[in-house]
């Protein structure tokens, strides 16, 4: 039984003649963590800003808990938001920043102080130690945690995170990402997370909406998005993908010719006709050097490039005009393959994604 909490219905946004979001639809369940993933300019931040109330949709409506909030002002929506640039008030201390929304809501001083202490405890910046510090006295990661506490303090119905980790260094990004997810689970707050980083989206989301050209190309769980991409764009954008050009030699038996070699892809060529050119996509982890049990398709090629990366060896194999990249584990008792060697790569035909 679905429990839709936020419903974005047929939303379109145009700036003059330019449409940046077009017919966007998404239902998000209560307590769900949904990421908007896409390249710059795909409209993900615009959708988030429309949910926040900073942009008015040209068409469509946004419903939260059954209430149409499309025309409400941002300060009437009871939504929390964390910005990429932290946006802490420089003239206020950490405690004052976190208590800002509570003060505006008219909460009694004692209750507000208690809530501020709770929030600072939640983000592991205790009030006694950090409450009196100013934003400039904190690191980027600490500032963003304070921004998260400030957004959560007034108990918003919805939490919006606009690329909150982009300005942080790699190590802090990973730890804060896990912390955000943990806090979100603990509070059970419905959350939208905007990012262009696929690893971030895949690692913390319940569902991901992959956006391109103002539309949701695919909405699904990280597993579905990665393993069953619905479009060529999703397949290319999420994860590394090897693409081989092939020609359907016999559609009835599922035979496909790749660089004068034939492989069988029965059941994967839905709708393709004999003679049609198709793209075959394979994730690097689906390919091995040499045969392997369960791999029913193989192609021969020449090793072009070998990169020793420690525990992993990245091998690029030329098959016809295409390059196939695959990773193998380093085996100290067996030397890595050499560039120029002839080799065979194998894979399970079931793992091939046919892109039309």
């Amino acid at each position: 039984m679905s429990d839709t909490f936020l419903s974005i219905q047929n939303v379109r946004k145009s700036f003059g003649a330019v449409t940046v979001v077009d017919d966007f639809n998404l239902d998000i369940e209560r307590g769900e963590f949904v990421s908007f993933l896409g390249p710059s300019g795909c409209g993900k931040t615009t959708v988030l800003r429309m949910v926040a109330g900073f942009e008015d949709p040209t068409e469509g409506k946004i419903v939260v808990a059954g209430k149409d909030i499309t025309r409400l002002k941002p300060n009437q929506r009871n939504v929390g938001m964390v910005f990429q640039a932290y946006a802490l008030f420089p003239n206020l201390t950490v405690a004052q920043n976190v208590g800002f929304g509570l003060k505006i809501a008219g909460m009694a001083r004692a209750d507000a102080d208690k809530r501020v202490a709770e929030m600072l405890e939640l983000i592991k910046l205790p009030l006694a130690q950090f409450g009196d510090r100013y934003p400039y006295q904190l690191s980027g990661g600490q500032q963003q945690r304070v921004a998260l506490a400030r957004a959560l303090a007034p108990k918003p119905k919805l939490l919006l995170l606009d690329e909150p980790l982009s300005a942080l260094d790699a190590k802090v990004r990973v730890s804060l990402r896990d912390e955000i997810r943990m806090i979100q689970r603990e509070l059970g707050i419905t959350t939208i997370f905007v990012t262009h980083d696929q690893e971030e989206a895949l690692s913390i989301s319940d569902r991901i909406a992959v956006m391109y050209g103002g539309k949701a190309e695919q909405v699904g769980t990280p597993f579905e998005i990665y393993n069953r991409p619905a479009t060529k764009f999703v397949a290319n954008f999420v994860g590394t993908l090897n693409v081989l050009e092939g020609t359907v030699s016999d559609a009835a038996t599922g035979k496909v010719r790749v660089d004068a070699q034939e492989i069988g892809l029965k059941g994967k060529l839905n709708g393709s006709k004999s003679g049609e050119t198709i793209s075959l996509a394979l994730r690097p982890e689906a390919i091995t050097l040499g045969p392997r049990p369960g791999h029913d398709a193989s192609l021969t090629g020449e090793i072009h490039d070998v990169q020793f990366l420690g525990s992993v060896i990245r091998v690029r194999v030329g098959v016809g005009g295409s390059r196939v990249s695959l990773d193998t584990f380093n085996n100290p008792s067996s030397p890595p393959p050499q560039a120029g060697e002839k080799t065979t790569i194998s894979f399970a035909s079931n793992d091939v994604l046919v892109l039309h």
Partner: protein
Amino acid sequence: MKTGRFWAWVTFILGAAYFFIPLIATVEFSMRMRRGAYSFDAYAIVLGDPRFQATFGYSVVAAVFTIILGVLIVVPTAYWIRLRLPHLRPIVEFITLLPLVIPAIVIVFGYIRMYGSNSPLPFLASNTGTNALLVIGYATLALPYMYRAVDTGLRTIDVKTLTEAAQILGAGWTTIIGKVILPNVLIAVLSGAFLTFAIVLGEFTMASLLNRPAFGPYLQNIGANRAYEPAALAIIAFVITWGCMSVIQVLSRFAPKSSNRPN
């Protein structure tokens, strides 16, 4: 390299001499009132003159009202231009520069013509009205300095994101301007305020043509009729102006550190 440093010092010394020799000469002259000895007699006469106290007091009050008016006009305007109408910035900057190109005498004659006792807005028909008109005129003269000071202050903070952060937390426009924007540009506003104070204190044309008992006309009047007192007055005015500038410098050290941008 050493030659370069030598010429740099020469230029610096010449520049310093250009500014300081007349100043030192004025100080020296202002202290020669008593025959055969240096004294502060001229200063004592000036500071003890009831007209000095009255005109100085009048100008200080006028400066305070000018600053309030300037802040009320400039802060919301500069904020709104940065937030919502950035494309209008060149136009607004041009308008704020006009008082530097249009002489005060032109502005004041315009006022006299527009706001005379027979006009629909007869500011000049009463003392209060004329005082108000003088303050409005001063606010116009100080506009280039006040606008630039506030605009520079706004440039150091991320106005748009801070506004949105406050909005999403439930704040209305008054709270945003009063509790988020103004405190973060307060030092810039104070800089503009002290510049305004210095301008108002020395302004002559408007006050004279509107026949107001301000400090500028008093300075001119003393200068035309006395020998040592004008020099003492010039030094007093100079010290007040420099005092204002020093206060700006001191206050700027207390500006909130802007850290709302990612490093």
